[in-house]
């Protein structure tokens, strides 16, 4: 098994999909000759040609709307949007058409397409390049929203997304693209969309995160472990639909839940996690559910982004608050 970064694992998944399924077509800005702004599609145009790895004009609505038509016709398009902050011009297509064609046509038509969107901060990028707008997509009925945090999951979830009969928003944590390497199986495999991943089991406290935040969550769990706190770590990895069972079972076991995300706090997925837990496991809780999140501000530029992004210290502080009770 080769050791791959998360970015390489995604490239590998796209390679697999293009090789195995003639209906798969990639389209987006600069995905061909330059291999994408993050080089995630590097080398694919050479292998599969410009008819299947398509450089498009700069037009996000055009990319999503065209991919939608392709999907309805019977292809399996994988569209790339360069950064989450650029996904909004295509969002009308997503919310008005992609997410609802199955409902509107009563299963007569469906839109099995994947929209890949690099998201999140931590790389000191320009404005609009660091956003975490997952809640907007999760709040849109008819979509599945997936966020891998490991190379293994990135490949398996992307292949599952491409095979899925419904539209999938596939969010790629920019900060993790090249952060770690791990063994990734050769060839085709899938990681099912829906189930969360139990990364670590513990009995004292549950930390919930996804995407790039998993890195901070892991370090926080390590630090708490040094003080004898047994932390359970859940990587949600699918945000729509949420895996309520895993969350509730864990909350019942530990009685303490801290949810971590880098998106703004208000009406974020952390609020949904907290609501699910209190609806279903209130009497098992030893302390209020805590949220460690980005702030309700515009994502700051490079010199201030450390103020915005949840870090180990903030997570540990929130965890200790639940343990004091």
């Amino acid at each position, binding site marked *: 098994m080769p050791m791959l970064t998360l970015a390489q694992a995604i490239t590998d998944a796209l390679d697999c999909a293009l090789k195995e399924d003639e209906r798969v077509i990639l389209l987006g800005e600069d995905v061909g000759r330059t291999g994408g702004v993050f080089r995630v599609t590097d080398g694919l145009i050479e292998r599969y040609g410009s008819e299947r790895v398509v450089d498009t004009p700069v037009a996000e609505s055009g990319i999503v709307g065209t991919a939608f038509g392709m999907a309805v016709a019977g292809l399996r398009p994988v569209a790339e949007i360069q950064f989450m902050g650029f996904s909004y011009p295509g969002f009308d297509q997503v919310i008005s*058409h992609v997410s609802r064609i*199955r409902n509107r046509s009563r299963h007569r038509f469906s839109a099995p397409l994947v929209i890949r969107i690099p998201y999140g901060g931590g790389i000191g990028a320009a404005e609009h390049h660091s956003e975490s707008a997952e809640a907007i997509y999760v709040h849109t009925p008819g979509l599945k929203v997936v966020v891998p945090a490991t190379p293994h999951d990135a490949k398996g979830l992307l292949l599952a997304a491409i095979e899925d009969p419904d539209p999938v928003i596939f969010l790629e944590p920019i900060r993790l693209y090249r952060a770690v390497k791990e063994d990734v199986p050769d060839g085709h495999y899938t990681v099912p969309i829906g189930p969360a991943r139990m990364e670590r089991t513990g009995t004292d406290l549950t930390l919930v995160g996804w995407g790039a935040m998993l890195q901070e969550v892991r370090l926080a769990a390590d630090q708490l472990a040094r003080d004898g706190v047994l932390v359970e770590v859940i990587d949600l990895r699918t945000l729509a639909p949420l895996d309520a069972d895993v969350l509730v079972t864990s909350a019942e076991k530990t009685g303490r839940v801290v949810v971590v995300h880098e998106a703004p706090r208000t009406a974020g997925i952390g609020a949904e996690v907290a609501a699910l837990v209190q609806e279903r496991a209130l009497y098992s809780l030893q302390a209020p559910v805590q949220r460690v999140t980005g702030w309700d501000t515009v994502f700051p530029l490079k010199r201030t982004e450390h103020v915005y992004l949840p870090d180990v210290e903030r997570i540990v502080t929130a965890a200790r608050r639940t343990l004091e009770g």
Partner: protein
Amino acid sequence: MRQLLDPAGELLGDAPVGLDETRRLYAAMVEARVYDRKCTALQKQGRLATYAPFEGQEAAQVGAAAALRPDDWVVATYRDAALMWMHGYTWEALVLGRTGDERGGSPPEGINILPPSITVGAHMLHAVGLAWGERVLGTDRVALTSFGDGATSEGDFHEAMNFAAVFSTATVFLCQNNHYAISLARATQTRAETIADKSVAYGMPGEQVDGNDLFAVLTATMTAVASARNGAGPTLIEAVTYRLGPHTTSDDPGRYRPAEEVEQWRERDPLERVRLYLASQDRWDEEWQRELDRTASERIERAVNIAEGLDPLPASDPFDRMFATASPLLAEQRDEAR
């Protein structure tokens, strides 16, 4: 502006189809008008939700549809019932949709028509993707998308025209310029002299035709469809027509246009000139007209009866139609809604 049949029914060039086919298309326009007027009447009785009438635009819609092959795609709007019906959507499904029932959104199996787009403009891109997808799948199907003059101000018009031209997709852009986007007149919609002129910027052919002239629309669409099918890419057709009724049953056009203007356009009625032409060829008489009116009324009545006679949808219905398989949380909501 291409015109082949003038308001007096005089043929100015070559008829694109023979007299039998002309009679069939005339009958279709008659039936479409009966449907349109019936829907307005039903809406006034409170039996339909808001309705967007197309009276005056029958030639543009029937003529364009007649140029398509049955397996081609149609991606149209809320004002395109005649176009959609001509291509295989059923009257009962169209009525059903207007009664406020999701079952109106599903065309018969094998009929390639997307449910009518309610948002303005976004659907044109779907016709680009559909035609592109069909090409990848190895078919020579064409996708025709219909929209109004107002939609040409939407950003998606630009993106769709540009993508279609850049990727040379088999897409036919049919703009029914009916002169008003709700209340905004065509002259204030764009400073371009014609909408067809906009094709130049995308490097695709464009043509302005008399949209109340069945033969002009049919000829232009046949040319565009043939070109698309042969791999020569997209075409923009501007069919200049007029919406004789309101934008929908909820607005009063008297607030934004003079009655004389409407009267002038009534004189250019798209049905009348075909009738005059057929009469000049001894292929129309009053008896046939009465028969057409009667059969059309019967068919539309039947469609309305079918649509209104359906049992209401169960509470579980929306939940079962969001995904191929509902998630556990969605299934919980379904149980809660019962």
